[in-house]
């Protein structure tokens, strides 16, 4: 018996990491594209490899990375959210109105997290239990949440304690560190039975249910986590900007979808990996800076952006078909 457990401990690594390695297959093409952009960026802007250059770059990527994860989780369960942007805004205004008040930074952060989890969970319950199409539930939800953000802060304002801004969005790569932690937490979640159920619940809910998977719970949990990531992104945006703005998150909705799909997340549930979604968001973020340094005019920026997005999706497909 002891022999078996020793060898199985040794195998833990092998099975887990073998599964992880297999997951790269679908996104290798994208990784290459991202890497190419990364190299190009480093070539165009040598300061990228200084501490503060890297810090600033990861800070502009960070909120997009979080919302891409938030969207990807939902898409893995076969859902989608059009309320991502509104939730980011709500997170930002909540942070900017509470953190300098009696609640303080810790209280504000707790509130932001609770609101994100709560709204996400409620959305999840509505979608899952009432069997309503996620796309319209979250569209309606986006108006409600955006309205709430306007009630909290009718016009840009509020404040974040400067030390917090400097900590999260100063000249240290703290944002990157947080991202690493978030990714590790995600891996941890995926290693729980509920987390791993996400894929089965998204791709084959009937089969999963018959196998004893708590399908509804897995999906609702995904919505809650997604909500948390969104308001978390909002908190970061507030820290990065030092203040709150009730419409700051608007563009994150479509960008999160673009990043997730670019990263190979499918719409039918269960297809794709988080690393893909992260790479997709990284590409979107890199693209902006690289085009700047290449001196593209706005017209060229729009055209190139469209081409890059299509190309990043189409070219790997062509390579797969050619094989």
């Amino acid at each position, binding site marked *: 018996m002891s022999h078996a457990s020793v060898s*199985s401990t040794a195998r*833990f690594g092998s099975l887990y990491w073998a599964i992880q390695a297999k997951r790269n297959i679908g996104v290798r093409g994208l990784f290459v594209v991202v890497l190419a952009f990364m190299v190009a960026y480093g070539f165009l802007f040598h300061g990228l490899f200084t501490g503060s250059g890297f810090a600033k770059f990861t800070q502009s990527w960070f909120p997009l990375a979080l919302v891409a994860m938030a969207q990807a989780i939902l898409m893995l369960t076969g859902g989608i959210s059009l309320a991502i942007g509104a939730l980011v805004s709500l997170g930002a205004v909540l942070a900017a109105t509470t953190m300098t008040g009696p609640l303080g930074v810790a209280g504000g952060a707790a509130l932001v997290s609770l609101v994100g989890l709560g709204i996400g969970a409620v959305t999840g319950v509505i979608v899952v239990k009432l069997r309503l199409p996620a796309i319209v539930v979250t569209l309606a939800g986006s108006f409600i949440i955006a309205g709430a953000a306007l009630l909290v802060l009718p016009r840009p304002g509020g404040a974040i304690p400067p030390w917090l801004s400097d900590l999260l969005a100063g000249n240290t790569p703290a944002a990157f560190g947080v991202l690493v932690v978030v990714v590790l937490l995600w891996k941890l979640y995926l290693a729980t039975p509920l987390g791993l159920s996400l*894929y089965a619940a998204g791709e*084959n809910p009937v089969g999963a249910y018959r196998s004893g998977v708590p399908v509804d719970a897995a999906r609702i949990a995904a919505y809650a986590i997604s909500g948390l990531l969104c308001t978390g992104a909002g908190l970061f945006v507030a820290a990065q900007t030092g203040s709150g703005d009730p419409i700051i998150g608007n563009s994150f909705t479509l960008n999160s979808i673009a990043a997730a799909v670019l990263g190979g997340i499918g719409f039918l549930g269960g297809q794709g990996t988080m690393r893909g979604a992260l790479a997709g968001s990284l590409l979107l973020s890199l693209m902006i800076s690289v085009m700047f340094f290449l001196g593209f005019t706005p017209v060229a920026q729009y055209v190139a952006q469209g081409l890059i997005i299509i190309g990043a999706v189409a070219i790997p497909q062509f390579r797969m078909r050619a094989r």
Partner: protein
Amino acid sequence: MVSSAPILAARGVSKAFFGNPVLRSVSISLEPGRIHALLGENGAGKSTLINLLSGALRPDSGTIEIDGRAVSRHSPPEARRAGIAVVQQELSLTNSLSIAENIGLGAYPRRFGLVDYAALAARAKAACDLVGLHEPLATPVGELSLGRRQMVEIAKALYRKPRVLILDEPTSSLSATETRILTALLEKLRGEGIAILYISHRLDEVMQLCQHVTVLKDGTCTADRPLEGVTAAGLVRLMVGRDPGDLFPRWDSTRTERIAVSVGKFSAGLMQDVDLEVRAGEVVGIGGLVGQGQEDLLLGLYGAIPARAASAVINDASGLPSNVPQANSRGLAYVPADRKREGLHLIHPIVTNLMLPSFARMPALKLRSRAKERETAMGLALQFAIKGDLGRAAQALSGGNQQKVALAKWMPLDPSVLLLNDPTRGVDVETKREIYAMLRAFAASGKAVVLLSSDTPELVHLCDRVAVVRDGRIVSLLERGDLSEEAIVAAAMGAERERQAA
């Protein structure tokens, strides 16, 4: 053998869908150490009964008993706790997860709240070894062939160390080798005192493996007795309610000289440089172990995947069709094996499913006539004995009837070459007989049939010639006179023998 108390039983259960009764007061009891066969025509209610036993559905009336006690709220987790494991007819797997993660799904070993991958690896490995599944455990299930996925499904059931194992048509997509492994395994499990419920349309398997049989006909139980002293013909009589005829129609050569399909150095997918000729009026079988490229041969001919050939003549026109519509207009029709994903649109009415190939061929903006469509569909339903309201969604049909729809829908186009991919998988004997008769009649009317099948007797009894495929090549082309199950299996296994010899 001493009959012991049943572990799992249904007592007078009834179930109706939307007011249509599917099961009427059916009883069944599964005893340890016994392989219990559940037989019935397509749509008799077998899968439904299983869903009741496993808690996936709840009976309208009647009770489910575990160890002699009635359970009030039966559910899949409840069933799992009671040691009931089911190998579903519809695969319950998740393509993006690995073999190991699928096997453990819903019952992962935990450590500190996390999935214990070490324990999972060990236990999944044990289950895989039982069923002869040697692919790496990290392989995503989506990369496996249908047959291998079925083995994963079985391993998944075994992983749960069941006291009751229910298998719904487990062999319908398995190769002969895999079937043999499964048979041996079931014998072994029976010896360990597990109660097994086994559903199959292959009567020879049932006769060989099972000790007890329950027969369903139209949702009622027509027999519940030991298998001893029953013949296959007797079973069919119980299922169908009348005397069975011969399963295979009388074989007469209807082969003509006209060449329907001829390709030289044809390559598509796994298939490399094969030559094949099909005459009008003949049935050409494609045999071999599952996944050797047979499907790519059909799909390539059909223009559904990229293909090339040094020479190709199809119905007197040269060149391969480059897409499906072109193939259709040249008289080719294809019936896929995976009818749920490739053959039918389950959420659409049966009538639209039957009419789809016609819609695809008609001028796009011509006005449709619903009355005419209904009439055509009714004619097809009659001809193919498709049971069910044509206005209902195809998902309400049982598997066998779905298969008939997938075949029947091509008839309005009057194709001259039928490419069939395992058309009798999961189809009951009566329907099989009907399909066989149709295929021969089809050939007799001067048309050609290419029949890919995993059911070797089918190839032996129906075909004029059989091409055996191995490793993407046709390794043997057996003429009618040389056809036998042994010959086909020998040709198909050639590679393994050579390897053993080396």
